[in-house]
């Protein structure tokens, strides 16, 4: 039987200092190894499988983050991700002058 695709309960909020973005995703019943989380600077994508069910979702963010600094934890069916926002002038590319 094909898995039922379900959108998980997701809560995305900033911390009080507006420096870190906190994400809570409820995926009860999923084993840690079956979670696949892709992070981009302006969004994230999640696939988490369990028997008979597949949690899937893609989410856009209002302000870019630094995905390489994301910290993710999983316990008791709740995936928590903390990722710092990108500073306004960060991440520029140096232009070589010919």
């Amino acid at each position, binding site marked *: 039987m094909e898995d039922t695709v379900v959108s998980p309960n997701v809560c995305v909020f900033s911390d009080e200092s507006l420096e870190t973005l906190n994400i809570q995703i*409820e995926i*009860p*019943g999923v084993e840690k190894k079956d979670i696949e989380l892709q992070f981009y600077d302006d969004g994230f994508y999640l696939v988490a499988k369990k028997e008979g069910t597949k949690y899937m979702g893609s989410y856009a963010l209002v302000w870019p983050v630094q995905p390489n600094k994301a910290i993710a934890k999983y*316990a*008791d*069916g*709740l995936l928590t991700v903390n990722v710092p926002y990108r500073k306004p002038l960060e991440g520029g590319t140096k232009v070589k002058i010919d």
Partner: protein
Amino acid sequence: MAIRRYPSIFDILEDVWRGFPLTRKEIPEADWFQEPFEEMIERFEEEAVPPEFKDFVKEEETPSGVIRRYGPFVYGFSYTAEPGREPIFREFGNIKPSYKGIEPSIGREPFVDVMDEKDKYKIFVELPGVEKQNVKLDVTEDSVEIKTEDDKKFYKMLYLDSAVDVDNAKASYKNGIMTLELEKKGKRKGKEVKID
């Protein structure tokens, strides 16, 4: 702003619970959502705040006197109807409307699946983010109360159709899902007595 007219969610729920067909009340927009809150806040200003609402009221000392802040109040519900199945009403938020007005809710309603098997009930409860030791279960012959004493508050009272054997209840918890197995109390077990 144009005045739109909506029935209040509280009106709808009250009608449903009372068993009346949906009646569309024509209330100007300004009233339909605020009114129950305004009533409640008025009540609090006259009398002392009841202890169960303490978390919703914050008092702040300012030079011009004490300022009271109310809230945040969160309420919502989802309605799922699938062909061949009973429609499901689920509520969430930190308050719940009732016939008495607004009451604080003890916790979010978790997703529960009850499988009624021939000789037992298998109950699955989704409690994501709750640690095992913070799940409190209270099983009686015909009901199950699920409560969490974690940062994430869940509350659900389940009523069972047939009596269960409380002493043989088995529960396990893994990855945020609690599985509860309750054996149904069988028919009276007896032995046939031969008549000499």
